């Protein structure tokens, strides 16, 4: 097999139907259909609504990707698909579709880990990833720190959130402040006009938490602290300084994420930090990570925002890496695994 394989990637783990096509580490197409607008009035992703949207979007999204890349299914070397973790019903649409394409086009199929794909996507922008690297993955569904020894074979989870994901905290605080779903972009915008003057709690950063939760996160207490602060103001009949609350909340999240990520790099003697997931599009997170990493000689790699959120290109990027590394494809009875562990990069 060539070390520049042509690989197609399918992503349906949450509310984005993505089909990406890469050749080696070159991105050829990244087609996306989002059902985010359908979920907005529910204040979060409704699994059945997402699954229905994936089924409708699959064929047209595939067609757009093939047209954009100027290739046919007969040309590709392999088809990769997110087989977990994610919403079970949503994953299943993508996995079944991938197998349908693979059987019809007589191509191998690779069921891959969504979180590992968030790491792999950076290779499309910044080239091969130095190994080992530390990856910080932050989205509406995940908040994890990983030690990436070998992207094709093994990823070691160092820690993750013990309650809400970071993106989930953004969504909940945005709702509290009367902002739309998803909450990341409006909070980021509001924070630019505010000052981080309110001291909100930094979960699991106390000395007593270091033994058991050095690399874990907790955002549930932060969310409640913000709610208490805002409600106290409202009860006192005082105006809520929305921009300052947004900036202070965002600072609390980004402070913890970057501090623990840098700590993980130093503990493992790693000088590359990759940040991925939807929250990686946050401007404060990017700036703070750069600033802190530069001080200790660590290189931060963050793909452009469109590659940070869920997409098919990231799945194709990981698939391409697996094919080039000679990893065997998945079997046709490949299941969708909503709780797929990080120790499995592919199945």
């Amino acid at each position, binding site marked *: 097999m060539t070390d520049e394989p042509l690989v197609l990637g399918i992503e349906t783990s949450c509310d984005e139907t993505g089909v990406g096509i890469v050749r080696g580490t070159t991105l050829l197409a990244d087609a996306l259909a989002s059902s985010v607008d359908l979920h907005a*009035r*529910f*204040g*979060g992703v*409704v699994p*059945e*609504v997402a*699954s*229905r949207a*994936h*089924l*409708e979007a*699959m*064929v047209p999204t*595939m*067609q757009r990707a093939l047209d954009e890349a100027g290739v046919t*299914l007969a040309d590709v070397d392999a088809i990769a698909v997110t087989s977990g973790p994610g919403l*079970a*019903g949503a994953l*299943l*649409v993508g*996995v*079944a*579709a*991938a*197998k*349908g*394409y*693979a*059987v*019809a*086009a*007589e191509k191998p199929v690779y069921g891959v880990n969504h979180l590992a794909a968030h790491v792999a996507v950076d290779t499309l922008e910044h080239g091969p990833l130095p190994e080992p690297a530390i990856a910080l993955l932050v989205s509406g569904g995940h908040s994890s720190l990983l030690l990436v020894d070998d992207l094709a074979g093994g990823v070691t989870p160092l820690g993750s959130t013990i309650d809400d994901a970071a993106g989930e905290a953004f969504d909940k605080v945005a*709702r*509290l402040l009367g902002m739309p779903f998803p909450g990341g972009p409006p909070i980021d915008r509001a924070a630019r006009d505010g000052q981080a003057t309110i001291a909100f709690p930094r979960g699991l950063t106390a000395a007593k938490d270091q033994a058991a939760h050095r690399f874990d996160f907790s955002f549930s207490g932060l969310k*409640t602290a913000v*709610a*208490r602060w805002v*409600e*106290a103001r409202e*009860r006192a009949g005082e105006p809520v300084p929305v921009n300052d609350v947004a900036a202070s909340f965002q600072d609390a999240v980004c402070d913890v994420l970057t501090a623990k990520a840098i700590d993980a790099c130093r503990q493992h003697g790693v000088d590359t930090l990759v940040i991925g997931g939807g929250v990686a599009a946050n401007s404060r997170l990017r700036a703070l990570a750069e600033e802190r990493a530069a001080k200790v000689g660590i290189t931060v790699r963050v793909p452009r925002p469109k590659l940070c959120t869920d997409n098919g290109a990231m799945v194709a990027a990981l698939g391409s890496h697996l094919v080039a590394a000679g990893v065997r494809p998945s*079997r*046709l*009875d*490949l*299941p*969708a695994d909503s709780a797929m562990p990080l120790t499995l990069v592919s199945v």
Partner: protein
Amino acid sequence: MLVLVLDTSTPAVTAAVADVTPTGHAVVAELRAVDGRAHGELMAPEIDEVLRKAGASVRDLRAIVAGTGPGPFTGLRVGLVTAASMGQALGIPAHGVCSLDAIGGVPGQVTLVATDARRREVYWALYDQAGARVEGPHVDLPEAAVERAAGATVAVGDGAMKYADRLGLEVRDEPRYPRVDAFVRLAAERVRAGAPSEPLTPLYLRRPDAVAAGGHKPVLR
């Protein structure tokens, strides 16, 4: 013309290869595994295996026929997205057939066809003595289905079997699941005419469970 038949509207995960000729049709090979929780795992290997059994390659296929339900959503989508993706990859049309029609009426009888809709309900439709669907598909409690299925003298389908004691009708064991032969017969005209692909829209019959977000719930007492 070889066609691939797929249905995942019931616990029976069905894949078959059939031959549609200018005047008739015949089932060449058929596989059916019954497992209501493994549609995603079973479908693709079954297709691979049934093609081998039929001595055919995917490139020999000229159309795909898929059961559009009604059926439990997650499993139903497996068959439909598989049919749609294969049709697209092979550049051949995909046709949908209501899965209850592929169970069909008992000849000479007014038949209630009912499949298991979970949540103590059935997906159902009513067929006249000539086998034409005259009511449905709907989703209801078994008693409500019988009440609405005026004139039914017999009931078939896994839903009818499951709730046999609540229907007050003669319930037959067969056909229990959608039949490959019926899928092919119901789509044969479209296959012969080389009709274009249709959007394979599932017959969901139920809306997604979701409630619009309310206001913020206070945390201060």
